């Protein structure tokens, strides 16, 4: 198949890549662009490990063809922190010990960041539903929910 040029921004940097039209955004991020922080847990949209932001919206990058990102803004876990300053969620995940094996964590953080961007003061239930598309086999979700709740409380004030 003739290859195509994908031009978009990834973590605010312009990117141009020569790719196959059948490649997923996940594969292009990992294999072509070399950003391996985004993980593949299933490849079928069931686990959320591959969650990235496309124009600010959380998507399963395993279900998005890379060419669908043409001209759009992609943000991955590598672009969640601002320079050396961790995103408040990343900081909270460390303080609460929310991660274990870490494999699901990039996806969970991207989902949680998208949730807080849309709803700065979610309830515990809204948080649980907000990350319900992200499977974690290690943690039982408890500390993640605690960590996200704390950040939401600090960011959203008394909503």
């Amino acid at each position, binding site marked *: 198949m003739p290859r195509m040029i994908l031009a978009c921004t990834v973590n605010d940097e312009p990117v141009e890549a020569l790719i*196959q039209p*059948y490649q997923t955004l996940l594969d292009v991020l*990992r294999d072509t662009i070399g*950003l*391996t*922080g*985004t*993980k*593949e*847990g*299933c*490849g*079928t949209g*069931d*686990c959320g*490990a591959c969650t990235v932001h496309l124009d600010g919206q959380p998507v399963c990058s395993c279900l998005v063809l890379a060419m669908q990102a043409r001209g759009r803004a992609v943000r*991955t*876990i*590598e672009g*969640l*922190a601002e320079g050396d300053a*961790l995103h408040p969620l*990343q900081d909270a*995940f*460390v*303080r609460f*010990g929310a*991660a*274990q*094996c*870490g*494999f*699901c*964590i*990039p996806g969970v*953080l991207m989902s949680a960041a998208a949730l807080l961007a849309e709803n700065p003061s979610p309830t515990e*239930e809204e*948080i*649980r*539903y907000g*990350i*319900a*598309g*992200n*499977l*974690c*086999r*290690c*943690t*039982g*979700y*408890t*500390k*993640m*929910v605690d960590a996200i709740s704390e950040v939401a409380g600090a960011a959203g004030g008394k909503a």
Partner: protein
Amino acid sequence: MTVATPKMLGQPIKRREDPRLITGSSTYVDDLQLPGLAHLIFVRSPHGHARVNGIDTAAALGVPGVLAVLTAKDLEGSTTGPLPYEFAFDPFSDVKNMERGPLATDKVRYVGDPVAAVIAETRYAARDAAALVEVDYEPLPAAVVDPEAGLAPGAPLLYEEFGTNLGHTQDRKVGDPDAAFANAERVVKLRVVNQRVFAVAMETRGCVTDWRPGRPGDSGELTMWSSTQIPHGLKTKLAVLLGVPENKVRVIAPEVGGGFGNKVDVSPEETLAAIAAMRLSRPVKWSETRSENFQAAMQGRGQVDIVEAAITGDGRVTAIHVDAICDIGGYYQYLSPLMGMLTGMMMPGPYDIPNIHFTLKGVLTNKTPVGAYRGAGRPEATYLLECLMDKIGHELGKDPAEIRRINFIPPEKFPYSNGLGANYDTGEYVKALDKALEVSGYRQLREEQQTARAQGKLMGIGLAAYVEICGFGPWESATVRVEPSGKVMVHTGTSPHGQGTETSMAQIVADSLGVGIDDIVVLHGDTAMTQSGIGTFGSRSAAVGGGAMVMAVDQVRDKAVRIAAHLLEAAPDDVERSNGTFAVRGAAGKAVTLGEIAAAAYGGNVPTGDEPGLESTRFFKPDDSVFPFGVHVAVVDIDPDTGRVTLRRFIAVDDVGNVINPLLLDGQRHGGIVQGVAQALCEEVVYDESGQLVSGTLNDYSVPTAHMMPMFELDRTVTTTDRNPLGVKGVGEAGTIGSTPTLRSAVVDALLPLGIQDFDMPATSVRVWKAIRAASGSNGQA
């Protein structure tokens, strides 16, 4: 010596692993790229049971970019013997001898059985080509799916040469069970099914294998990065299997995305990947897809238990008879034979049962082989015992807590040998029970339940006690090295994959040397870098690995004290650690830092009798295992119209001995509880009668998500052990072992008013709804 720096042990120190994990900058196997990397895809059987009459690889070989297509025929001579499986450490005399290679030969025995391997320049080409491999299957009728049916005369045979599907047996007796049953006031019987479950580590299996061909007079070198829990064991076994000298084999477990026992394996896939790299002299990557993981990664549990107990009129168990039927799958794979054996070893659980008869039948079935899964054999023992305790309570009309209380092994009987090879160290089971009742507000819950029942509501309170054997040896290792600058480098022979062992080991070292935790780096999982080790499984890292770490660091500390005394011209007994220095007691200003000591050590300025350098490698062999225990309580509500079970509260009182880091501890408990709860509520591997895997995707297999779980209420008692230097017992599996029977107990308790006493997991809405309909006399078949 006095310790003046704040103690790290016991503190909720932040995980040292996290900075790389939360930024996505860690390296898991699939993140690795090597120059010239080729990709490996397996062709797997779509049949549960079929003869393989031929394989045509011509079309696959014609796909551009394909480098090789391998079948069993091509592998002749590639290995020195069959794939290894372990049964050596138990008196099984009759485990069948199985000559399995990495690819199926004349027959396939489960859906997912690998029959061919395609290696290509890209994953895409390999996948396209794999679809073109033509396998001539002759499906065999009536696959063996139900292990009990597999034992029936005339059942189809997986291995004609064995003449039976019975793979192995065990028959063990303690005391005089026959006499106890003859004299029993009452006999209680039940049959419980411990269904198969998937481990579902979020990172599937995979490996990257690199082969540097040999030169005349020199063997080639094999390096494998694998998502494994046992890099050292894998190295040894691969070396033997491939005929490569062990000192030319290096296995690296990079960041590993969860294991749960599933990655304690020397798998056909890893073996084949190594062979492929050796054949092609190119690095080869195998990344398992999720659907392959469901089909071919070892599954957990799979046991049917037929239970009889002799009891006294007040509910004391005087004897127990258990026939365990273990669903092994199509092959023995690494630890498969051991699972049922561990059940037998823990048969009496926390109860003082003097007479025991345990039999085991390991049955070969047309399913994926079983292996270790969080608890491995001990959850099965606990589950059947707790179902039994509930049943005794129901039959005698007694509170389940009280039935357990009168059966517990009393504290004065420890150390307690259960007659089956387990020698319990310490236990205060009544204490844990009382705490669980108190923390849960058990009495109020029962009152609330009465009111709820009066209103026709189905509220259930479940309770289960457990004791587990863990901290298996035979040994573990540690190296502590103070670098010339005073920074500390530590190697552990364990191979963590989420446990936070880098943090807990650093805490141990920080306390002994009096250095800051940030000055310590903990490495693991690289056989070329680390001294030999065993790995991470069976809740052993703290108990056994921690013991080795204590021995190594204390030896380094003692030497540091001697060097400090030498530098300060004092007696070693007068040197104490204070504020990060080694100082002479009572002599203000006479102190040296660890950096100064290290500089002297590597400068050769050491006292007579000491060698230069400042490092120690030690191996710790515990005398025996350790036995954590606990009591869990769950509260559920069941919707009588839909059968939906809602987990309202979960209370866990665990006793894991001393605690190194409560942050890590609670994380292990949360995760363990959810996995155990999931088996009771929603997870089940389903095969149809032809051996087809029905639950083979994340859509068909219900792994709990965040909105399905409540917050957990955790409490502890502390009963230490003298079987390791830290007095720790291990926590990795405790949550899972306790929570499954607790949930099942709660579900049955909720359904009791309907006359339901027996219920097999998982308590999905459909199954509960059917049970309710059946009990209320209406047609349960929707």
